[in-house]
């Protein structure tokens, strides 16, 4: 039985910051899900704020590396999806307030 929780995975990913907007990916609402199996392999489902993002691969690598730093984690996979498309309503209140979007 794996002891790694979804919260622990989200906490790890929250160390990854988008250098353009200055917020971490979790508070931006870009991380949709983290599926953890019994062998502690983690499958992260995330999106990006724009499909043409030139940091696409780097961000997914940073997410992978952040999750791999969790103790006893198995294989880590990061999947980028475009459905549902990200919008500002998915972000935390502090992000909405800071960006002035709401």
């Amino acid at each position, binding site marked *: 039985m794996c002891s790694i929780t979804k919260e622990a995975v989200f906490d790890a990913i929250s160390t990854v910051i988008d250098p353009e*907007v200055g917020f971490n990916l979790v508070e931006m609402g870009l991380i949709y899900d983290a599926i953890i199996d019994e062998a502690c392999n983690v499958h992260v489902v995330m999106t990006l704020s*724009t499909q043409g993002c030139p940091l*696409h691969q780097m961000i997914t690598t940073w997410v992978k590396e952040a999750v791999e730093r969790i103790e006893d984690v198995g294989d880590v996979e990061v999947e980028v999806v475009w459905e549902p498309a990200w919008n*500002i309503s998915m972000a935390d209140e502090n992000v909405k307030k800071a*960006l*002035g*979007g709401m």
Partner: protein
Amino acid sequence: MKAISSDFAPPLKLISPFFSYGVAFYLLSMLALLFFKPSFAYAQMDVAGWIHLFLLGFVMMIIFGAMAQLIPVVLEAGHAVVDVYYVIFPLLLIGTSLMVFGFWLMPGILPYGGLLVLIAMIIFAVENIATLKKTSIRTLTIDTVAWSNGYLLLGILTGFAIALGLSGNLGINVSLMLKAHVYAVLGGYVVLTIIGLSLILIPMFSLAHGFEETAINRAFKLVITGVGIVFAGALFAQEWLMFIGYAVNMAGIFFYIWQIYIIAKLTVRKEMDIWAKSMIFAFGTLIFSIMLGLLYFIIGKESVLHASVWFLLLGFISSMITGHLYKIVPFLVWFERFAPLVGKEKVPMLHEMYSKEGASMMYWFTTTGVVLGGLGLLFENDILFKGGASFLFTGAIFLFITMRKMLSYGK
């Protein structure tokens, strides 16, 4: 999962000369403005020299550098041969310098400068077309890249013919060829490319999502068609055909502005940074330029046309470019020098990589200069025009300094 564009990002050392020298050419163009008078004719060699200093040295140089970075982002495919940009840069640099020198002092060397620019642009266009063939994605933006490159080739061929005509090596109607050349390069390449890139970059930086794209699709089609009609009209000396082309293009620009309005309404980021302020000024001057253009067709006064072109070049095109430089250059520097350090040590945010004060000074001096200089042209007032040129030159100094600092950040 979609293809990953950052795999194909060219190195900073390949792109940075385009930005460094592009901004240096901008500084020189603004300095040169101090020596011009507000009333002139387009056929004057010194005016043609300034136009080429500005359009080739600044606008094309920056667009080429930006395209080296952005083509993979748009096409989601790597460059066919990215190293050609190492060849394109010196050819464009030397060719532009020779052409400007030729226009101002020695017409005999124009064809040599023109030939170097021609080679640089052919390499650029062929590489772009080869890269386009690598991708299976077909969007209207990608089709637009293909069309704009086609117009670029037509524009440089007509430009080279003009250079041969001016130096007495080719018997052509320079005046007609000039109209075809200006329209193919300015409308067919520069404006079409800026429209295409802004549709990618403006939503990206403003975090606008889920907008309807009907207007921009119409804009692309109308501008592509309109430029073709004007080019044909100029080439075959059919004035009526050119007027139809102008009207079609005007409709295209209207749909483009309408699309930008739709995107602006959905913008999430409301902060008024240098990029946002530059975009507002750019579109404000574009609208003003169109109004002056329409007024010219009604009253036929040359000074109104000069002011319209001024606001298009120094208002819209310049502000679109300088505003985006404060986004693109920090990103490129960050990507090269700081991205590998993420997770290992504290890295700067992109907005921390340039001086806000310097950018702000650039903005206010430049916008004041554009307005004053434009009014100087409109009313053919030397004091207003010279005042505007002085403000623009001061703004260009701030742009140059902030650019140097951005490029050397973290070195």
